[in-house]
């Protein structure tokens, strides 16, 4: 066999540049998916190594040790314990940061105990000089029983050497580098005696961790070797001390730090960024800049996409032979796809800003700054991250709550995150704002439309915070509060990391949302193009009869027939059925249809209206916006999208829980239907009444 495939697992603490090493090894050659049944992100990349070897490189979630305290960490252990897993690594690569070597080596010693060939990467080597660090590599290799690659993933140095080491993984020692079982030799001897064929450390993990193992009968081991929770924890503490003793010993001989060389920029930046006044000023200024720029920067590409799809639609209907299939393409599929593509600029910008904030290390300072304030509302400082990334999409945001240690704080964060203005609301907001809010400037610089959008974002946060406060009072849950946040050193975000992140996240979002939107568009088109009974199928005759006294010209007649058909199509009937309920909010049955379809996903709103108005209108050339502008209420002659109904719609979309995927993720993360059901009922009720009150006051 000339081509050999090997599995490589990248393991390491968060903030060690593990993902940069991954990106350096694989480039854009990666796949992001989920582990089966859970929502932990699974990143696999492919890399061609020397000597015709191909490597599948698995970027495991960052973890501080093999003592799992979150689902992300359990994934690491489960993989490393299951030799039958098809991703079980032939070689493990532990990535460490040269500045935090001591702490980063803890997990290394644990991986070694599993007797997997392990290569040690000492990353951020480019910082050694400025920090006054020197390392004796041969000494460390001998003591740690491994091969070491000195890498600077930032500069791309040492990657080729790492590849060479991976290729020759069979020469990397796989025995453990210390014996931790001396902390209670009697206990561990008995344990080994009872299961002579199993690795001792593996058995120990089975006893202490709550993770799934394939071959080992957990109950059997646990019943014989049970210890109380606090006894186990004491042993784990001793184990940790033991490991650190070993690490300290090794580093004493192999690592020199010249403290006088260390210039601590971190302390200076920290003083400003966590200052009691400047800290908050800077934080809110950053948020303000992000939201203003998302709105103003993305309008140009969005308008371009909107008009491109409008003309594509009209081109399709004129170029293709007329018929049902052409109608489906030009009125169903093309506007549907356009409704997805139009998101890309805004989502990409959001992901760009969020990943810059995370990469730079700033996000941890925000957590530190906000914790005390957030706790008053039953949240944690760590809730800030989901609440901010919720502005991109609630789904990754809810997954990001996993590092909140306290269950109650985490649950509340999950429940209120969907209030934050996600990018799916943006197109709805953008189109309604541009219809009902005048594009004026106040005080010379502030755009009124931009301000309205800003207000809606603030409204989302306020709704989230107030609901959190209420939930905190209502929910009776007693859990221990733990809060440990690592404050990483500041780093200039790497273009490659940020770029790959933006591309991957945007792609995942567009493909995921795209499928739903496309499917719904096609269904909608079908429902709007067919109808039951005489009113639909004999539309032409009915219109002819109705206008017999005053015959219309050809175009008007056609439009009249089309709207008669739409009104009596399946979807028209559905829309009209709910019209009484939504009329007090200022909506007509066409908006009603858009509301119904929005319960699958909010962003469908614009696409739905696009589909409905295209079916009812022979003029394909116009953009969605101009079509919405032209809509009038046949009874009163008033514009459908006026100030009162516009505000009412904005409020409805701000509060309503219209996202099937978010409900699904809440179910997954809370493991119960109770919480998503609660989200759906409360948010929808709030949305309805807020919209009702607003419309009744403003009309």
């Amino acid at each position: 066999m000339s081509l050999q495939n090997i599995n490589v697992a990248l393991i390491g603490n968060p903030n060690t540049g593990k993902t940069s090493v991954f990106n350096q090894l694989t480039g854009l050659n990666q796949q992001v998916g989920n582990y089966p049944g859970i929502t932990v992100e699974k990143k696999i990349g492919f890399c061609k190594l020397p000597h015709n070897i191909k490597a599948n490189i698995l970027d495991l979630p960052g973890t501080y040790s093999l003592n799992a305290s979150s689902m992300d960490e359990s994934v690491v252990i489960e993989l490393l314990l299951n030799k039958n897993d098809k991703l079980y690594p032939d070689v493990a690569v532990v990535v460490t940061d040269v500045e935090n070597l001591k702490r980063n080596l803890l997990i290394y010693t644990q991986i070694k105990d599993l007797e997997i060939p392990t290569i040690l990467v000492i990353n951020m080597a480019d910082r050694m000089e400025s920090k006054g660090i020197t390392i004796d590599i041969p000494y460390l290799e001998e003591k740690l029983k491994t091969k070491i690659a000195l890498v600077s993933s930032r500069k791309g140095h040492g990657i080729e050497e790492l590849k060479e080491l991976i290729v020759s993984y069979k020469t990397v020692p796989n025995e453990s580098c210390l014996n931790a079982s001396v902390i209670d030799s009697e206990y561990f001897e008995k344990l080994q005696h009872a299961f002579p064929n199993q690795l001792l450390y593996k058995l120990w993990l089975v006893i202490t961790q709550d993770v799934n193992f394939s071959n080992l009968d957990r109950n059997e081991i646990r019943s014989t070797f049970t210890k109380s929770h606090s006894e186990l924890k004491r042993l784990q503490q001793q184990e940790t001390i033991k490991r650190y003793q070993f690490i300290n010993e090794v580093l004493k001989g192999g690592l020199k730090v010249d403290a006088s060389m260390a210039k601590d920029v971190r302390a200076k930046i920290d003083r400003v960024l966590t200052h009691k006044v400047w800290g908050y000023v800077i934080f809110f200024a950053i948020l303000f800049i992000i939201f203003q720029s998302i709105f103003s920067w993305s309008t140009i590409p969005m308008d371009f996409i909107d008009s491109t799809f409008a003309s594509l639609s009209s081109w399709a209907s004129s170029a293709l032979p007329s018929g049902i299939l052409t109608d489906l393409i030009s009125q169903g599929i093309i506007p549907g796809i356009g409704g997805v593509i139009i998101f890309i600029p805004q989502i990409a910008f959001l992901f760009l800003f969020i990943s810059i904030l995370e990469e730079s290390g700033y996000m941890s300072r925000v957590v530190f700054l906000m914790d005390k304030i957030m706790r008053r509302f039953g949240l944690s400082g760590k809730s800030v991250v989901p609440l901010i990334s919720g502005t991109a999409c609630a789904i990754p945001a809810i997954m990001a709550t996993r590092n909140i240690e306290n269950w109650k704080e985490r649950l509340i964060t999950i429940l209120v995150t969907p209030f934050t203005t996600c990018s799916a609301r943006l197109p709805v907001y953008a189109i309604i704002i541009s219809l009902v809010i005048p594009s004026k400037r106040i005080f010379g610089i502030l755009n009124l439309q931009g301000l309205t959008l800003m207000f809606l974002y603030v409204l989302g946060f306020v709704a989230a915070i107030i609901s959190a406060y209420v939930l905190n009072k209502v929910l009776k849950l007693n859990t221990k509060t733990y809060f440990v946040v690592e404050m990483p050193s500041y780093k200039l975000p790497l273009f490659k990391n940020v770029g790959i992140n933006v591309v991957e996240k945007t792609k995942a979002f567009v493909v995921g949302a795209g499928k739903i939107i496309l499917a719904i568009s096609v269904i909608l088109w079908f429902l709007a193009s067919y109808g039951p009974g005489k009113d639909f199928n004999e539309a032409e005759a009915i219109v002819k009869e109705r206008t017999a006294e005053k015959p219309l010209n050809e175009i008007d007649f056609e439009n009249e027939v089309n709207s008669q058909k739409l009104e009596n199509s399946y979807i028209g009937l559905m829309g009209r059925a709910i019209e009484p309920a939504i009329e007090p909010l200022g909506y007509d049955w066409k908006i009603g249809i858009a509301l119904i379809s929005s319960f699958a996903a909010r962003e469908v709103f614009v696409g739905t209206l696009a589909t409905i108005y295209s079916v009812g209108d022979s003029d394909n050339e116009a953009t969605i916006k101009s079509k919405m502008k032209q809509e009038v209420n046949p009874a009163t002659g008033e514009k459908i999208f006026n100030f009162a109904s516009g505000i009412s719609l904005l409020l409805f979309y701000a509060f309503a829980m219209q996202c099937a995927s978010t409900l699904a993720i809440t179910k997954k993360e809370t493991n119960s239907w109770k919480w998503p059901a609660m989200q759906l009922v409360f948010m929808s009720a709030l949305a309805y009444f807020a919209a009702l009150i607003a419309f009744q006051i403003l009309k």
Partner: protein
Amino acid sequence: MQNTIHTLKKGDKAIIKDFDIDLIPLKLLEMGCLPGNEVELLQIAPFGDPLYLDINGSHVAIRIETAREIEVELIKNNL
């Protein structure tokens, strides 16, 4: 009065003495919060909580309720 991390002032350095293991998350131990290790209080968040520490070279923030449980012996007073 026994010193804890909570009683330290900004810039103080101390040695970790003892704590009730049931009240301290394992993750903090893994970060290096173990008896005999050095701890320095780097920053106090606005409103007095959480505390930003350098524990044995690891930079971490913890809440006062945890800091209160960790006994220390002052070695360098920042006055």
